C-alpha cells in the first residue's frame, strides 16, 4: 500500500491528474484554471502537462461553462467544471437544473451527462460575500443530479476520480476551509464507494451526521462530549444525493438520537431531509427528535462574525445536551 501525506488541495490535483491520464476524453474547464492553476491551485500544473485543449481557461460566464460542457458531453467528452466559488454557481442554475439534470432522461439514455461540477463550498476562510456559501440543498432537491462531498485528502483523491468515471452528473462539493489540511492518501485503493456514508468515530449515545467542513467540527464535539461522558457516533455523510440512509439509520437504531450538523441554513435543507427520512425509518428507535445544527436563516454574514454563523463545537454540544436531556 502506497501511502502519502498531502493536503486536500494536492489530493484533488493528483486525483484529477490521474483521471486525465486514464481517459483522454476527460477535460477540465473553468475560470483561471490554466496558468494560474485556479484560485485555490487545485489544477496547478495540469494545463502545462495536458495542454490548453484539455485544461480550458473559460471566458467568464458560468452558464456557458456548464452549457458548453453539456455539448461536450453529447460529443463524448467528460468535463470537470470548476466553479470558482460556491456563490457563483447560480448563473449556471438553469443549465444545471434544466439541462444537466434532465438530458439523460430526455434522450431516453442516449446522452451521457457524465460531467462533474466542482464547487469549492462552505465558509470559514474569512472571505468577502458570495465566497462562503453552502448551496448543496438546491442540488440535492433536484432529481437527475448526484451530490457528493469530500472531507479528507484520501476521500478527495478517490472521490474525484470516482466522480469522473461515474456516468451521472455530479456536483462535487469541496470544503474550501479544509483544502490546506494534510492527511494520508492511499494511492492504491479507494477506501469506500462514492455514495457510502462512513462512520468516522463509533459511539453509542448520539448519532451525529455531518459533511465537508463540519465533519471535523463534529469530531471535535465528540472529544468534548467524551469528556462529559457522552459517546457520539460521528458519520461523514459523504454523499448527499443519494443519501446513504442505511448507514445513518443503523447508527440511529443503536443510539436512539440524531443530530445533523450543516453549514447551510436550516429550512428545506439536507438536514431537514435527513431528519425527516430518519424519523420515518427509525420512529420507534428515536428517544429524542432528530435535531439540526445549522447556519441561521440569514445571508452569509461578513466574515468577521462568521464563526457565530457556522455551527461551532459549542452549538453542537448544545444540541447534544438537548437530545440527551429529552428522555430524562
Amino acid at each position, binding site marked *: 500500500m502506497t501511502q502519502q501525506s498531502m493536503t486536500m488541495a494536492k489530493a484533488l490535483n493528483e486525483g484529477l491528474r490521474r483521471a486525465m491520464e486514464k481517459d483522454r476524453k476527460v477535460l477540465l474547464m473553468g475560470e483561471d484554471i490554466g496558468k494560474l492553476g485556479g484560485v485555490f491551485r487545485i489544477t496547478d500544473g495540469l494545463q502545462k502537462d495536458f495542454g490548453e485543449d484539455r485544461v480550458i481557461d473559460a471566458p467568464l460566464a458560468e*452558464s*456557458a461553462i456548464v*452549457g458548453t460542457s453539456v455539448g461536450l458531453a453529447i460529443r463524448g467528452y467528460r468535463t470537470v467544471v470548476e466553479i470558482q466559488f460556491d456563490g457563483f454557481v447560480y448563473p449556471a442554475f438553469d443549465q444545471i437544473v*434544466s439541462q444537466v439534470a434532465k438530458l*439523460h*432522461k430526455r434522450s431516453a439514455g*442516449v446522452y451521457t451527462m457524465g460531467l462533474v461540477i466542482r464547487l469549492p463550498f462552505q465558509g470559514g476562510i474569512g472571505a468577502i460575500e458570495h465566497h462562503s456559501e453552502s448551496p448543496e440543498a438546491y442540488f440535492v432537491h433536484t432529481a437527475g443530479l448526484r451530490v457528493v462531498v469530500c472531507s479528507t485528502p484520501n476521500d478527495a483523491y478517490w472521490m474525484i476520480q470516482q466522480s469522473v468515471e461515474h456516468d451521472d452528473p455530479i456536483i462535487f462539493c469541496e470544503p474550501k476551509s479544509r483544502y490546506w489540511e494534510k492527511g494520508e492518501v492511499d494511492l492504491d485503493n479507494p477506501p469506500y464507494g462514492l455514495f457510502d456514508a462512513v462512520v468516522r468515530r463509533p459511539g453509542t449515545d448520539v448519532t451525529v451526521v455531518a459533511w465537508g467542513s463540519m465533519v471535523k467540527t463534529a469530531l471535535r464535539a465528540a472529544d468534548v462530549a467524551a469528556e462529559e461522558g457522552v459517546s457520539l457516533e460521528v458519520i461523514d455523510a459523504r454523499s448527499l444525493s443519494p443519501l446513504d440512509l442505511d448507514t445513518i439509520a443503523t447508527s440511529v437504531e443503536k443510539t436512539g438520537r440524531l443530530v445533523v450538523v450543516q453549514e447551510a441554513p436550516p429550512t428545506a435543507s439536507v438536514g431537514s431531509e435527513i431528519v425527516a427520512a430518519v424519523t420515518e425509518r427509525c420512529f420507534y428507535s428515536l428517544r429524542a427528535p432528530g435535531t439540526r445544527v445549522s447556519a441561521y436563516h440569514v445571508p452569509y454574514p461578513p466574515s468577521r462574525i462568521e464563526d457565530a454563523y457556522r455551527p461551532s463545537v459549542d452549538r453542537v454540544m448544545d444540541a447534544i445536551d438537548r437530545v440527551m436531556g429529552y428522555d430524562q
Partner: protein
Amino acid sequence: MISDELVQLLTPEGERVSHPEYRSELGRDEILGFYRDMVIVRRLCNESTSLQRQGQLALWAPLQGQEAAQIGAGRALAPMDFSFPSYREHGVAWTRGVPPRDMLRIFRATTTGGWDPQQYRHSLPMVVLGDQTLHAVGYAMGIQRDGAEEAVMTFFGDGASSQGDVLESFVWAASFNAPVVFVLQNNQWAISEPTSLQTKIPLYHRAHGFGFPGVRVDGNDVLAMYEVAKRALDNARAGGGPTLIEAYTYRMGAHTTSDDPTRYRVDAEVEVWRHRDPIERVKALLAREFGVHKVTFDEVAAEAEQLALQLREDVLAMDAPDPTMMFDHVYAESHPLVEAGRREMIELGISGGH
C-alpha cells in the same frame, strides 16, 4: 426585395435575382427536392394542427411560413454535422431523417424526447429558450478537439436572441473560433411580442459586435437559405469559425395551438407575408425554368397527403406510456430514491398502462 441588406436569390414571384456574393447552381432535381420537402413539412404541420384540434396532441407549434428557412438550412448540413434545434424546427428534423411520428411524441406528451439524437445527429427539441445554443458551441468545441471536419448548426428565434445564454454562446463561439452556425429564425414575433421589442436594429448585426460574420437572408427563399448556410458550414468546417444567419421570415400561424394571435396582430400583416410564400416561388421557378409539370406537383402533393395520413395513423396508435417509464433513465446508474419510487408505484398498482 424586402431590404437592401437581405440575401435573396429568388423573388416572391419566383424570379431569380443575382447577388454579388451568392449564387445558386442547383439543378432541377435538387430544387424539386426542396420543393417536395417544403410541401411535405407544411402538410405534416397542418395535419398536426388538426390532430391537436381534435384533442390528439397536447400542443402543436406550427412552422408555417418558415419552411424555406428550415429546409434550406437543414439541407445544407452534411451527414456528419450535428444540429441543435429549438421547438419549432420540424422542417430541420425532417431533413435529418427524423420520422414525423417521432417529432410528434413530445407534443402528444408521451415523452419528453422523441428520437435517438445521436442516430439522426439532431438533438431533441429545446423548450427553454436559448439553452441549446451553448450545447451547440460545446459540441463544436468537441469537434475541434477531435480534429474532425464537421460543423454544428443551432436554431433559435428572435425572442430567444435576448437570452443571456444565446449571447454567451456568441462570446464562446468567437473566443474558441468554434465551428458553429447560428440560425436565427426571425419570424417577427415571440408569441405576442414583435421583434422591435427585442432589438431596434437588424439582429444579424449582433454577430459583428462579437467579432464574427452575420448575414441576413430572405428566410422565405430556400435557394438563398441553402447557399448562405452551406457557405457558413463549409467555412466552419474549414476552421473559419462561427457565422450568424438571420433568416428573415414570418410566423404565419399562431405561436402554438394555445395561442390567439388576433389579440396582438393584424390580418393585414399576415396578408403581406402570404404573398411572400416560400413554396409558391419555388413552384413558379420549377415550372418556368425547369418545365416541371402539374403532374409532378400533384405527385408531391399526393405523397404529402399519404405521409399525413400515415402520421395521423401513427399518432392515434401512440398510447400513454406505462407510468413507471418516469423512473427509467433518470440516472445512468441505479439510484435508491428512483428505485423506491418505482417500487411504490408498482405496489400501488398504478403501473401497467393506467
